[in-house]
């Protein structure tokens, strides 16, 4: 049994579902939940319900990403953790890469399965075409887990809060000057359990409203294909695929997306793929699970109605 740290991500003092999945990935181990910048007491019950034996709060505040890595490293040493898992979110991937570099320990990013006892993980190579089984050798096992691949399962544990002061300083290499807030309230694409994507057939930026109406009914995020981004219908932050985001939701609904190889490279590990396209010969229909041949401006509103 490995004494395993789990980096818990929160939003407005609520634990993200993706972090609960990471707790489940470590089921059977002695679990130390490390909570960044949230009140441990506020999330204690939920963490205990999903298997946290110990809970540690790490206050970073507005420090640089290096400071967070130093604080995690201090906690790993203090509690003799032999493994540390997190979410392969934008923040998690960055933080774990800094942590692994700082401690000079191996790291595997974006795993789809993890075996802590044998130190073997599975992850995508070549944009989802290949799954690599990797053996990780080293005293500390670090990995981030792709969001939504592990369904959270409750496994009650004691959830004892430990007081810990990292006592580390920001190395001062990277200074955060400003955080420009996005529109807010938007679900992060890489972590969304359901994604509705609009391709070139969306025809205009304002037509994304139709997809947002559909998405908001099912707690989905809205994405865009490269063609739609290049045409100026959507910002690059919404792009799914190579040179955009890699996503792996439970349900991916592609609306008016032709299905280029580069698009599949970013979403082919989705559990269920639905395609709606007017062109019955669109490549997307050869690699999806369910298809509807039709005009997205008729099908999507009808679908929204039924959801």
């Amino acid at each position, binding site marked *: 049994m490995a004494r395993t740290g789990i980096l818990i991500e929160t939003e407005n003092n609520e634990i993200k579902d993706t972090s609960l999945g990471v707790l489940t990935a470590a089921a059977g181990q002695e679990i130390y939940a490390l909570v960044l910048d949230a009140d441990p007491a506020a999330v204690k019950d939920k963490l205990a319900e999903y298997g946290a034996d110990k809970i540690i709060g790490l206050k970073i505040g507005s420090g640089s990403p290096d400071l967070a890595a130093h604080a995690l490293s201090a906690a790993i040493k203090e509690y003799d953790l032999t493994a540390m898992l997190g979410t392969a979110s934008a923040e998690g991937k960055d933080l774990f890469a800094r942590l692994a570099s700082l401690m000079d320990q191996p790291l595997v990013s974006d795993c789809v399965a993890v075996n802590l006892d044998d130190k073997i993980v599975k992850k995508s190579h070549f944009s989802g075409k290949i799954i690599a089984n*990797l053996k990780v050798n080293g005293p500390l096992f670090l990995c981030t887990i792709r969001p939504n691949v592990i369904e959270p399962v409750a496994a009650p544990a004691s959830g004892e809060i430990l007081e810990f002061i990292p006592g580390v300083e920001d190395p001062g290499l990277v200074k955060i000057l400003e955080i420009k807030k996005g529109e807010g309230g938007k679900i992060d694409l890489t972590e969304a359990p359901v994604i509705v994507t609009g391709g070139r057939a969306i025809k205009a930026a304002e037509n994304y409203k139709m997809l947002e109406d559909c998405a908001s009914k099912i707690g989905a995020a809205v994405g865009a294909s490269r063609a739609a981004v290049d045409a100026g219908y959507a910002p690059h932050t919404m792009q799914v695929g190579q040179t955009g985001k890699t996503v792996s939701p439970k349900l991916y609904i592609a609306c008016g997306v032709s299905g280029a190889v580069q698009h599949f490279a970013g979403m082919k590990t989705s559990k269920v793929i639905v395609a709606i396209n007017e062109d019955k010969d669109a490549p997307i229909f050869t690699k999806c699970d369910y298809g509807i041949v039709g005009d997205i401006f008729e099908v999507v509103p009808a679908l929204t109605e*039924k959801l």
Partner: protein
Amino acid sequence: MKICVCLKHVPDTAASIKLAGDAGFEDSEIKFVSNPYDEYGVEEAVSLVEKEGGEVVIVTVGKAAAVTTIRGAMAMGAHRAILVKIDDQFLDSSLTAQALKAAMEQDGLPDMIFTGKGSVDTESFQTQYRLAQSLGMPVVNEVNALSLDNGKVVVEKEAGGGDKQVMEMSLPCVVGATKGLNEPRYPKFPDIMKAKKKKIQEIDLADLGVDGAAGSVVIEKLETVPERSGAKMLQGSVDDQVTELVKILKEDEKVL
């Protein structure tokens, strides 16, 4: 200023990967290209040097065939290159960073280092961080905007949930590039011809004192992911189709 760009030679995303043995793949018949994210790094380095003066040095850890990818970056304007030769496509991130560091130290450390945000073959997303740590340099990854003024580099990156972070680093530093940073140029014919005459220095990994067999992340087995096929096409009126789809997603697939 001297800028190094780490460039990886990777299979084209459209290539179909045929496995060979437990941990390898057939690479002789598929097309290889520059890792797409690295091209944003090449473009940024070349345009900075066009403004500030200096040189752009490509540093690649790869098989001998990577020369074709290096020539492409030279056609975009890089001045010379160092190829650290390895026998396998796969070298773990830690060893790759050690090889890049050793090659750069031998050549003289640069003022700035660009990499892509990650490579599309092994998708490890960490070599740039390890390189920066070993050189004591700051690093920011997934950079989509950059300005350089008086030795200070201000970069912008996307944070989660649509937020953007603006960060500042001093030179020398490491920047992981992604889409948005610039639009990589298409080399013109004379540039392609000129690139053929530019110097590529080849070094064996072992000559840099790096043991290629000492990796701590080892591939035990590669498995092909079966492609989806035979999609269920829904039939009937639009109303029938969406009604059936919702029923399937709720009751059979249980994803809603």
